[in-house]
């Protein structure tokens, strides 16, 4: 077989490349390049027409210069000229230049498309492939518009060469991914599916990628592919190692095609047809059997190819999660790999076993490998392998092995890689809580955690230990004793001081009987840490001190001395100063009874999901969190039901999204004393009634969530309207029945999708302003009806109704307004809204009144849209994509491609997306031009996690700018509705 020699065919190119390689410096290289560019430019501009060979050579040089990282601003036309050459090598260079350097110069695109068209109809398979590869590489919308109709024809035509079919299939796939709206498979579907039967394995290999993509979007239309895929797989799996000749790779028959077939089947549930299912199970068993056979070659390529199929088969088995026998066999096979000498296999086995651990059929089988996994955690050299081991330990943990696993994780933490410490801390904290039988073990574990990895212990972790200690009186004494001991260490982590301060402030009395931990000893111990701590911790300690005064009157003088010192009472930090002033005052003027009431022990926290679990889910995505709070349903739920898992996790992580009330212990926003009930708060205010202004802010901040509402600003438009003008007022219907909604009411509604306040409607008589606010599944809307005339409205009456099924989806309540609206006056109406389940239509607002005797009857749509019930959800990129993938069922996705109606100003786009109610996630999409958002829609019936991606093509000419908007959520109606609403906003 003749090998190609260096740069054969184009000597000038080879010389140029050598010259560049010989350049000793960057400057020399740039000089040489500039010389060459000048040369090429003069050749292109010269009078003498260049022959094809020279053109090819110069275009190729330009390409080389571009690939070195230099800008190329000419030569495009010459490249396009090459496309119409009859010589393959010239055409190839032309197409390559276009593929690498394509720009959206519309003039050129037209010429390029013309050349492609000629090549596609040339019936020359080489030229057809070049053209198809160019389309596949560029994949622009213009190309899709020009060729999306033609390529399916080429793909299924009887006389198309195999190699062209391969290219056509993948070319079509590329166009489908880029512009799904332009690729209509309808009439071709069945013939495309039947490519799975093609004699040529290469055609099947290429076509199956297309079929998999189309199936995942339209499973029903393509479901006949299941039986075809099973029979193709069965033929490959049962063939001898040399039967497939060209497609046998190191004695493994068609490994890539096998993997792709197995992956295609993962788009579908197990086959319903018994015969097909039987055949498939047989295939899977054969694949598992082959793993036990002696290798046919010692080469790693052989075992890799074989195992690629095996792992894909195991993925399918896990996807089905219905064949206990196969699941257990898969687990045993992976168990063997755990000790394999190939690091790759150990890694993959740990990863795969992690998903097996959450299947009820294989959980026990996975657990038998605990010692091997612990060993992996201790000895693997590659941190990513240790990470997988930690994941697996977490996934296999249950009541029977929790103590062992937690102990191993703790000891691993002492030397763990920084990159995985925080996550390990969360996992230990969750397991310790979930499987705590005796709570002293739990307290020990968490304090150890703080001792070993204090920097990585997030707020959630220490909040949680305090919640648990407060809620369980059997552990309070032990906790006090333990933190007291832990604080003895000369250097202890600030998080330990926080926990210590809090717990001693609440329960220090439980250990005060021992002279070694008498009240003063406790106080001195805490105060010895004070000056090394940050402001929030000092604030917490001050609260602990005032609690000490209540618990131990004998410490009062000492503590008052501390509070009175300049460093406290004149502290430059306003929070510290305020606490010092208030606590000092409180301790001096309040009677013992009042003090005891104010500083009462914290009431138990309401039981709720562990905020740590929520945080881990947020960090890792739901798939990685295999421990649920309810023991009984901890398994089975997590596998398969991806959408449900995604939902719950988004909802859960939402719980830890910062909101004013999320400060778990109320340390920041409200007074740090035990005043969790309003009465305690107002008591404080009474106590301080003469203590000067600085004290009043200690009262519980009882801002209603709408207290900041004001009437909308008066409109600029002239208000004076003579009665005679009323004729020109838009639709006034004489009937007393509510008028049908105004034609523009949808448009008015759309204006409020991304904002909550503004003017909803205005005509010559009336202006309607809106202020609204939403929280969870509840909303409150204030409507302001302004009479723009100088004459009063009489019989003023408004009704809000929910037509059709909206009645069962939204609960809307309102009070009637006064029937008289004076000229120039404004009346206000409050509407309370409860979202019961997701909905599409909007409630109708009907306004009727008489103005100068004429009945005015106006109906509008109230801008209550499903997105108002969004709670934003922050998440990291990995979580986003994991959830995105979990919501990959076609009905979970809604997509729209639409022309931009406004400019693509980044800030405006961001503001709109935030206005939608979702969290705008930065650094998630690999393409920084794109926007991704996440949120949870809160309805009474359920929470619907929702992910959004908006892809602008900002580079396009103004007027041709488009967006692609994709919504994924666990509920098809929600995806569709949010998509529809948002598509109107850009």
């Amino acid at each position, binding site marked *: 077989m003749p090998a*190609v020699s260096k740069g054969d065919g184009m000597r000038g190119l080879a010389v140029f490349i050598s010259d560049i390689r010989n350049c000793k410096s960057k400057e020399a290289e740039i000089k040489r390049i500039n010389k060459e560019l000048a040369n090429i430019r003069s050749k292109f501009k010269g009078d003498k027409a260049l022959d094809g060979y020279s053109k090819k050579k110069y275009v190729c040089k330009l390409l080389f210069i571009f690939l070195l990282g230099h800008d190329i601003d000419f030569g495009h036309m010459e490249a396009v000229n090459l496309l119409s050459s009859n010589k393959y*090598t010239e055409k190839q260079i032309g197409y390559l230049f276009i593929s690498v350097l394509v720009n959206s110069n519309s003039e050129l695109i037209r010429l390029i498309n013309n050349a492609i068209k000629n090549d596609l109809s040339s019936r020359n398979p080489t030229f057809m492939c070049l053209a198809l590869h160019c389309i596949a590489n560029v994949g622009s919308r213009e190309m899709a518009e020009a060729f999306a109709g033609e390529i399916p024809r080429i793909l299924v035509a009887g006389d198309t060469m195999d190699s062209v079919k391969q290219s056509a299939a993948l070319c079509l796939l590329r166009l489908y991914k880029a512009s799904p709206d332009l690729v209509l498979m309808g009439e071709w579907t069945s013939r495309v599916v039947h490519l799975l039967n093609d004699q040529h394995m290469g055609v099947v290999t290429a076509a199956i990628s297309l079929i998999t993509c189309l199936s995942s979007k339209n499973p029903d239309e393509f479901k006949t592919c299941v039986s075809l895929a099973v029979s193709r797989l069965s033929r490959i799996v049962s063939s001898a190692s040399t039967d497939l000749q060209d497609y046998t790779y190191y004695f493994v028959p068609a490994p890539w095609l096998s993997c792709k077939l197995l992956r295609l089947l993962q788009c579908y549930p197990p086959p319903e047809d018994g015969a097909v299912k039987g055949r498939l199970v047989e295939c899977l068993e054969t694949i598992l059997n082959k793993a036990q056979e002696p290798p046919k070659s010692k080469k790693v390529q052989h075992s890799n190819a074989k195992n690629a199929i095996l792992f894909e088969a195991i993925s399918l088995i896990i996807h089905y999660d219905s064949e206990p026998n196969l699941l257990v066999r898969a687990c045993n096979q992976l168990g063997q790999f755990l000790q394999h000498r190939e690091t790759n296999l150990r890694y993959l086995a740990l990863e795969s076993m992690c998903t097996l651990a959450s299947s009820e059929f294989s959980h026990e089988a996975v657990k038998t490998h605990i010692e091997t996994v612990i060993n992996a955690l201790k000895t693997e050299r590659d941190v990513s392998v240790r990470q997988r081991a930690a994941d697996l330990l977490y996934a296999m943990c249950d009541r029977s092995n929790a103590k062992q696993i937690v102990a191993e994780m703790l000891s691993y933490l002492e030397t763990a890689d920084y990159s995985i410490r925080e996550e390990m801390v969360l996992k230990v904290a969750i397991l310790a809580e979930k499987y705590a039988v005796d709570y002293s073990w739990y307290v020990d574990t968490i304090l150890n955690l703080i001792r070993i990895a204090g920097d990585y212990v997030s707020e959630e972790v220490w909040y949680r230990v305090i919640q648990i200690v407060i809620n369980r009186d059997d552990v309070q004494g032990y906790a006090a004793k333990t933190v007291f001991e832990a604080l003895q260490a000369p250097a202890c982590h600030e998080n330990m001081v926080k926990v210590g301060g809090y717990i001693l402030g609440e329960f220090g009395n439980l250990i005060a009987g021992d002279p070694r931990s008498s009240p003063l000893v406790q106080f001195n111990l805490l105060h010895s840490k004070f000056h090394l701590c940050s402001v929030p911790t000092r604030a917490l300690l001050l609260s602990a001190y005032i609690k000490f005064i209540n618990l131990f009157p004998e410490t009062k003088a000492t503590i008052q001395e501390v509070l009175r010192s300049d460093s406290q009472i004149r502290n430059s930090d306003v929070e510290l100063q305020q606490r010092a002033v208030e606590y000092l005052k409180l301790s001096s003027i309040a009677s013992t009874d009042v003090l005891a009431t104010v500083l009462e022990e914290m009431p138990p926290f309401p039981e709720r999901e562990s905020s740590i679990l929520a945080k881990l889910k947020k960090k890792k995505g739901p798939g990685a969190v295999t421990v649920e709070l309810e023991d009984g349903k901890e398994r089975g739920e997590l596998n398969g039901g991806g959408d449900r898992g995604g939902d719950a996790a988004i909802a859960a992580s939402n719980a830890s999204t910062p909101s004013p009330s999320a400060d778990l212990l109320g340390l920041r926003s409200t007074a740090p004393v035990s005043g969790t009930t309003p009465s305690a708060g107002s008591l404080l205010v009474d106590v301080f009634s003469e203590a000067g202004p600085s004290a009043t802010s200690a009262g519980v901040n009882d801002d209603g969530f709408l207290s900041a509402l004001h009437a909308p600003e008066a409109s600029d438009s002239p208000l004076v309207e003579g009665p005679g003008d009323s004729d020109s007022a838009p639709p006034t219907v004489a009937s007393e029945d509510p008028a049908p909604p105004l034609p523009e009411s949808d448009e008015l509604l759309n204006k409020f999708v991304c904002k909550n306040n503004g003017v909803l409607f205005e005509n010559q008589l009336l202006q309607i302003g809106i202020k609204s606010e939403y929280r969870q599944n509840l909303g409150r809307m204030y409507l302001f009806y302004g009479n723009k005339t100088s004459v009063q409205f009489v019989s003023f009456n408004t009704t809000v109704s929910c037509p059709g099924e909206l009645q069962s989806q939204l609960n809307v309540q309102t009070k009637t307004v006064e029937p008289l609206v004076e000229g120039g006056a404004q009346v206000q109406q409050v509407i309370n809204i409860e979202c019961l389940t997701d909905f599409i239509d909007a409630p109708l607002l009907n306004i009727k009144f008489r103005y100068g005797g004429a009945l005015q009857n106006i109906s509008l749509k109230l801008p209550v849209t499903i997105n108002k019930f969004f709670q934003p959800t922050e998440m990291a990129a990995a979580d986003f994509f994991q959830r995105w993938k979990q919501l990959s069922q076609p009905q979970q996705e809604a997509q729209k491609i639409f022309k931009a109606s406004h400019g693509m100003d980044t800030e405006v786009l961001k503001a709109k997306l935030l206005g939608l109610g979702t969290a705008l996630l930065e650094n*998630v999409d690999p393409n920084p031009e794109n926007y991704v958002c996440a949120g949870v829609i809160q309805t009474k019936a359920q929470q619907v996690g929702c992910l959004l991606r908006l892809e602008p093509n900002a580079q396009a000419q103004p007027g041709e700018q488009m967006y692609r908007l994709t919504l994924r959520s666990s509920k098809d109606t929600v995806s569709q509705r949010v998509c529809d609403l948002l598509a109107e906003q850009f």
Partner: protein
Amino acid sequence: TVWIRFILIQNRAGKTRLAKWYMQFDDDEKQKLIEEVHAVVTVRDAKHTNFVEFRNFKIIYRRYAGLYFCICVDVTDNNLAYLEGIHNFVEVLNEYFHNVCELDLVFNFYKVYTVVDEMFLAGEIRETSQTKVLKQLLMLQSLE
């Protein structure tokens, strides 16, 4: 759906010998990705796996002499299938260039693109049979 985001061939010094992109990136982003991949891959030794998490994706890579062949795919994709996909590609290059070395890729960069397009297209595997790919490449070689 999953597909290859890019294929990179780099030498140990970080010089790119092939960059094939299957996803839209602007030029700055491409340069950043190239540098990040180099940083991530070159610190790993033979005891490490051939897989490394990379942004929201993973890199499947294998080193041949001084060259790193890297494929960036979805995290859920089949690691070993792509690892052998790389090897299959390298064997084709080796046959085509008759004991391929780094310089062959430099001087014949425009032919390497042809080899890639024969084997991978639109981020998917197009043809896996070495015999078929080489036969096609030789046919093209004979055309002028």
